[in-house]
């Protein structure tokens, strides 16, 4: 039961506060549903198409929304909120009131140490872990990955070292958008597809990123697990209502005691 949040790990790797991200998840899920379910094409066609589309939108939003704002945090925040209002509202008008579902790629349940888990959720968790590892390797051992970390830590210094921050940002947006698409595929198959589906995971992943420590992949993965476990444990022991209060109280405490996040480091 603790893997419910596995899916949200994916979003944790985002660096820019991008509210459109949730809508990318939603749009990708709809694309996958449309191609893979409605039109009956196989999933291995649908998912890459969705990833390509999301990556494209990611690059476009970087070029036309966030670059003109010079990544000023609050402005990006507002633009993101505005864009996501518009996209969500348009989606209701286009897709209609019926939620859709992407069938599970692995139906059925397994029993692991006395705990029942849907195979699809395990698959989602597995995909998360694999992607997290790939991303870690990418950031630490490839040239564009190192450039990305350099820009994150000190934009000016990176510029002096001959790294073009703009092209790094483009890559970052593209990758994170592609991750959003994979997230959409996973979320859609576990929770169904509707225009609001991107909103809650986004808030949750934002919290996970903070707790894990900005920019730390290992921290993000652990924080995701931690939040998932905490959520499940308090929910099971205390009932949903009280858990809601306790979860946020715990969050407050963690942040006050460890302002850099549980696994964060001083930059």
């Amino acid at each position: 039961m603790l893997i419910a949040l596995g899916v949200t790990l994916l979003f944790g790797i985002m660096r820019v506060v991008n509210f459109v991200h949730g809508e990318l998840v939603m749009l990708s899920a709809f694309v996958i549903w449309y191609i893979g379910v409605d039109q009956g094409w196989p999933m291995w066609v649908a998912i890459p198409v969705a990833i390509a589309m999301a990556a494209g939108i990611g690059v476009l939003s970087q070029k036309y929304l966030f670059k003109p704002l010079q990544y000023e945090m609050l402005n990006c925040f507002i633009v993101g909120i505005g864009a996501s209002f518009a996209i969500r509202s348009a989606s209701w008008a286009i897709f209609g009131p019926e939620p859709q579902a992407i069938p599970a790629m692995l139906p059925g349940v397994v029993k692991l140490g006395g705990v029942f888990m849907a195979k699809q959720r395990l698959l989602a968790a597995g995909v998360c872990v694999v992607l997290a590892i790939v991303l870690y390797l990418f950031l630490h051992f490839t040239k564009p990955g190192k450039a990305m970390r350099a820009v994150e830590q000190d934009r000016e210094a990176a510029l002096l070292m001959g790294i073009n921050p703009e092209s790094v940002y483009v890559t970052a947006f593209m990758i994170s958008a592609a991750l959003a698409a994979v997230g959409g595929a996973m979320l859609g198959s576990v929770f169904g597809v509707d225009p609001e589906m991107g909103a809650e995971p986004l808030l949750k992943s934002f919290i996970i990123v903070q707790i894990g420590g900005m920019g730390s992949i290992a921290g993000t993965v652990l924080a995701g697990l931690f939040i998932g476990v905490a959520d499940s444990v308090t929910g099971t022991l205390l009932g949903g209502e009280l858990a809601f209060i306790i979860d946020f109280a715990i969050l407050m405490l963690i942040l006050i005691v460890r302002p850099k996040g549980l696994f964060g480091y001083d930059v």
Partner: protein
Amino acid sequence: MKLALPALIVLLLALPLGVHNQYFLHVMIVIGINVVMAVSMWLLGITGLISFGQAGFMFIGAMTTALLTKDLGWPFWVALPLSATAAGLISAPVGRLSLRVKGVYFFLVTLAFGQVVAGVFAYFENPFGGWYGIRDIPPPQPAALFRTLDKTAFYYLALALVLVTCWIIYRISRSWFGTVLWSIREGDLLASSIGIDVPSSKLVAFIVSAFFAGAAGSLYASYYGYISPLVFTFEYSVNVLVFIVVGGFASMAGPISGAVVLTLVPELFRVTGKYQMMAFGLILVGSMLLMPQGIIGAWQKLVPPRGGR
């Protein structure tokens, strides 16, 4: 330019004499509440800190008013200052703890605080009404004046609250203390290096900001007569932040104009029904791209301010 402000106030005072459309007055009252919230968040905002707990303090103020006027039968006029004070008092320890963290982390701590407030009020049905909220909160005295179907008195009450709030916060922002707050924005270290007590200054701003949010909540409770955890949500705090950013940080006219414009604009699109949110979203995107410094930034570019700030 000098005459503009008094002229505007006279216009606002005279408004109900000429306008009898109750919907219009209602929108003006909503604007009033939003302006108070935006200005109070802005005061803390000038130090560079954004509190997502404003809706929580508003809820505390609203709840205090509801309990005092409904359960204890106290007059609203006593409840209003007490509600603001309650929000201010609770904000002191909260601020003490949460101000230890900075930037995005402060966002999150205050966000969590807002959720805890809503969660606590929702959990304890007695006396907070739980998820049902509290209904039939009595209007201010004399009740004959504060009526559901004639909002003139409520309008003047809201206007008075707006003027008092704006005046006080304006004085603060222009005082020596205000300069201190602006300097903190440039960097904690820098500010403390010139002998400013950074933590205390932030805390005072936090408390003042919560105080006025509580006052806005008190007005909300007595005007709407109904409060519930569904009202004072994290989303509402985000809305208030949107008012400030779209309005502009540079001066207090920013949050005011942001709250006014962004309350009016959705009303203009209300007739479009399901397209209202779409239009609103596009307007937000457009306004940020065209006016990255907010309405006030764009205005100052068009009409460069004469003289000093």
